[in-house]
């Protein structure tokens, strides 16, 4: 039993043409027992920045609160919104502070620069960051997610096509993993705003 497989999570962040999408499943479990089907794992940090936290649920919630606190402090002092690149560095530093007793959480970050360019990043539990221009995945079934994203991804997708791609990739992947699923939630972020949709999937 690995601590990263205690609660269960699956998430994808994918880039399109001047837009990003981030999606996650909704299950909260205690090993094989499902405890909630509406557990939030993706959080809005700024109007153009979302973070997805996959891993131990208590650390998901703690990190969410910590990040909101740090963002508020930054906006108070700097009088401006935090950009995605700065946020990635902040999150990485927060995780590495706990190098020898880490938060059991592997986050993904999806955001847009003020010019509307997509920023995508993923991290391991001690803050090692990867920045990509196509997609990042995290959670229990990363192999399934990588397989789906690698095959379905095309560069420069419009928001509607991005939504379809990210939804199909998530649903097909979680259906083959016992610890993830029970529906999904997708956020598509553009310079105009954010559209949030719930996915209907197999409730098992």
């Amino acid at each position: 039993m690995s601590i990263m497989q205690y609660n269960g999570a699956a998430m994808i962040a994918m880039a399109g043409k001047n837009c990003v999408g981030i999606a996650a499943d909704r299950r909260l479990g205690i090993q094989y027992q499902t405890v909630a089907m509406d557990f939030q794992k993706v959080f809005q940090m700024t109007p153009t920045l979302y973070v997805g936290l996959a891993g131990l649920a208590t650390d998901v919630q703690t990190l969410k609160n910590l990040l909101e606190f740090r963002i508020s402090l930054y906006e108070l002092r700097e009088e401006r919104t935090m950009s995605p690149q700065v946020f990635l560095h902040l999150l990485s530093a927060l995780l590495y502070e706990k190098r020898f007793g880490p938060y059991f959480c592997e986050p993904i970050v999806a955001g847009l620069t003020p010019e509307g360019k997509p920023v995508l990043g993923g991290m391991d539990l001690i803050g090692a960051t990867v920045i990509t221009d196509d997609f990042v995945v995290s959670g229990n079934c990363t192999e399934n997610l990588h397989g789906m994203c690698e095959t379905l991804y095309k560069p420069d997708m419009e928001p509607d096509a991005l939504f379809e791609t990210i939804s199909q990739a998530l649903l097909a992947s979680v259906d083959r993993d016992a610890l993830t699923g029970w529906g999904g939630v997708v956020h598509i972020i553009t310079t105009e705003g954010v559209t949030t949709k719930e996915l209907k999937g197999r409730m098992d």
Partner: protein
Amino acid sequence: MMHSAPAPFRSAAPAQPALIHNSEGNVHLRQEQGSIDHGVTEAPYERRFSPYDFNGGTTVAVSGADYAIVAADTRLSSGYEILSRNVSKLHPLTEHCVLGSAGCKTDVDQLRSVLDIKMNVYSHDHRKPMATPSAAQMLSNTLYYKRFFPYYSFNVLGGIDAQGKGAVYSYDAIGSYERTPYSASGSGQSYLIPLLDNVVGHKNRMDEKRELGAEEVVEILKDAFVTAGERDIYTGDSLEIMIIKKDGIQKQTFALKAD
């Protein structure tokens, strides 16, 4: 056990023997003053010979209305090394039935040998080649014979059944099997199965389901193996596809990345 009195404050390492806990029990080791490894490298521990090796690779089988397609990469690895870029994982058992196996190559070879002998005996006794569902059952039984020292072989069987329809069977290492519309096994199976669910099984889709032709499935499998080749270190080099129809087996090969 003798415990000496703690040495006066001369070095970081205590004068008491290092206490090592391991599967053989607890061991006290006398070490040099100032030794920094605290006995870890000297304590006895169990070493075992493993009869199995993992040689990697991915196999896929998809069935259709009048065809079955079995595909596999051709890479043979051991650890981080590539032993060969051109070893086939596909083995025709009859004119209408192909076995794809990934896992431990020596077990795969032995399994194929045993199956070939049994197929020959059957065709000698019954004066006809074995039908695909019967071959599927025979493979299951052959694997279960070695239930307590298994063939480390992850198989997919694809072929045409007695009615001329495509048939695919998936197995685990000890012979549990089931007829399924499609199957994938080996190191890259997790990358491929959700894709097959979505595209071949039409799961989680709102558009109308339609029958796929053999050529379409070949194109899907090419994409699938490119993906598996990207993300799985044991999959790559080239892709071998066998298309089984009523009139026989047609073979195709495509290049994959060699990294």
